[in-house]
């Protein structure tokens, strides 16, 4: 299973880590990198990754997306959905050409985002994106693999009819090799603790794998470990929280909105959790062996010096996470059975470590192990599904 860097703001941290051998490739983000700058980038960085075209909101000119030739506003000012009727072929050509010029590993078919998908959503997506993209790829005898990007809304997981509709739609396309799946995350907690959501996600991935599709999961956080038991082809690591959890806000031009900066957190592979730095300070005061709960990396010595000023915008905690999580994923068994056993063992171990920590520290719901019993139960339920 591969690990891609979901890049965004401060993509240089991802690029530096990737150059140092962390991860298998980069997913590039047009709202964060100018099209010419990306074009000029070392092709070796691009050949193993891909571009997320980010046409989610069609004509929202967030960040640098309007520097891309396929950005609808560059075809016609005030481009709206009805304009796709006349421009979808041109848009597809420009989008494929740009991706080809950069020599990415995969070609990505974009996807629209709606708060509530219209009833014509799949038909529209087929007509405006899938068909013109696949036709152009075929006409030009392009050999690269094609991935369809799909935003999976919660309702598409929880409602069986909607789930089957989207799965039928995805698997009904003959000319695509796989999917770049993005699970929309509307949860208030930092970890996903919803049993049904997680189990349905695993089932969703399994159906696609059973249909011989490549499945690449975008915007994943720690739950990527759980998703690994459905045998996807790749998961992602990201720095800031909005790169580890998909929300449409990231693509909206909300310049005036005030955001409260998050507290710095450190990922622990043993705890399967990100721990708020202030709790690490408390651990330091109350637990002499506190450092043992955190993994080794080249960044750890600096982060654990008293002079280190913790801040959410510092690179070290993220680079540490990229390194540790990539290693954790790469260590997973190649077999499904093996992964299930390993993950169950890791969860049990993490829960016992949390018990030790909670003898001294009263952790809040975003730093504790409260997601882990749910994970364990989800694994058991998924195991039952596998034997059906």
């Amino acid at each position: 299973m591969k690990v891609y860097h979901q890049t965004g703001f401060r993509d240089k941290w991802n690029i530096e880590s990737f150059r140092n051998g962390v991860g298998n490739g980069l997913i590039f983000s047009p709202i964060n990198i100018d099209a010419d700058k990306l074009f000029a980038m070392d092709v070796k960085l691009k050949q193993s990754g891909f571009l997320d075209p980010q046409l989610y909101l069609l004509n929202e000119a967030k960040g640098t997306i309007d520097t891309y030739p396929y950005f609808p506003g560059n075809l016609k000012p005030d481009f709206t959905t009805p304009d796709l009727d006349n421009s979808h072929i041109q848009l597809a050509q420009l989008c494929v050409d740009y991706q080809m010029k950069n020599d990415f590993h995969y070609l990505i078919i974009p996807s629209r985002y709606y708060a509530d998908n219209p009833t014509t959503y799949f038909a529209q997506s087929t007509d405006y994106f899938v068909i013109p993209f696949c036709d152009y790829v075929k006409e030009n005898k392009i050999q690269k693999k094609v991935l369809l990007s799909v935003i999976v809304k919660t309702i598409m997981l929880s409602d069986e009819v909607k789930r089957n509709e989207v799965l039928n739609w995805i698997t009904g396309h003959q000319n695509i090799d796989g999917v770049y799946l993005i699970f929309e995350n509307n949860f208030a907690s930092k970890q996903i603790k919803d049993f049904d959501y997680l189990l349905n996600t695993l089932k969703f991935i399994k159906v696609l794998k059973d249909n011989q599709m490549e499945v690449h999961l975008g915007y994943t956080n720690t739950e990527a470990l759980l998703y690994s038991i459905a045998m996807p082809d790749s998961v992602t690591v990201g720095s800031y929280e909005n790169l580890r959890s998909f929300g449409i806000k990231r693509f909206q031009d909300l310049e005036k909105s005030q955001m409260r900066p998050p507290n710095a957190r450190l990922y622990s592979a043993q705890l399967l959790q990100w721990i708020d730095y202030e709790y690490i300070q408390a651990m330091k005061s109350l637990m002499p062996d506190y450092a043992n709960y955190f993994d080794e990396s080249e960044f750890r010595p600096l982060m654990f010096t008293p002079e280190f000023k913790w801040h959410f915008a510092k690179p070290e905690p993220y680079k540490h996470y990229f390194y540790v999580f990539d290693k954790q994923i790469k260590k997973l068994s190649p077999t499904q059975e093996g992964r299930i056993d390993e993950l169950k063992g890791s969860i049990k171990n993490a829960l016992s470590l949390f018990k030790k920590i909670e003898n001294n520290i009263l952790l809040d719901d975003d730093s504790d192990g409260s997601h882990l019993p749910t994970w364990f139960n989800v694994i058991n339920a998924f195991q039952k599904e596998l034997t059906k």
Partner: protein
Amino acid sequence: MFETEQEMSLMFEKFLKMNFGNTYLKECQGLFGVPDFVFYAKQKQEISIISFELKLKNWKKAAKQAFRYKSFSNISYVVLASGSSKAALSNIELFQKYNIGLAKFDNDSFFEILYKPEIGTPYSEELNQKLVNTISSSRKKSKNIEALV
């Protein structure tokens, strides 16, 4: 019975002022969590910081919040509306284990400490210093701090 936490907060503020002086910060931001009140007492060069988390109910959530405040405070209290303090009292061992204070407060301004924690060193020198810097120029005087410590 308080109708809202805001009502409880207003009454508690009056109570603090009257009994302990106006050496406090209300809903102080930029720390670890947002305590309802941060009370401070200066004695010679030393500044003692006591945080309060007020809640109408949900003692466990309040305890988790109060624990966070120990990052910058010497003492941290959960103050529950009298009606809901019973559940917390039956879990007093959690407050003892984590050295978090527990008190009840009612709309007659009756304040009773149910568990007085030991004074401790804040876990984060940086956050504590941030508060101390804010407070150090204040000339306000506290009183009766021994009742809380």
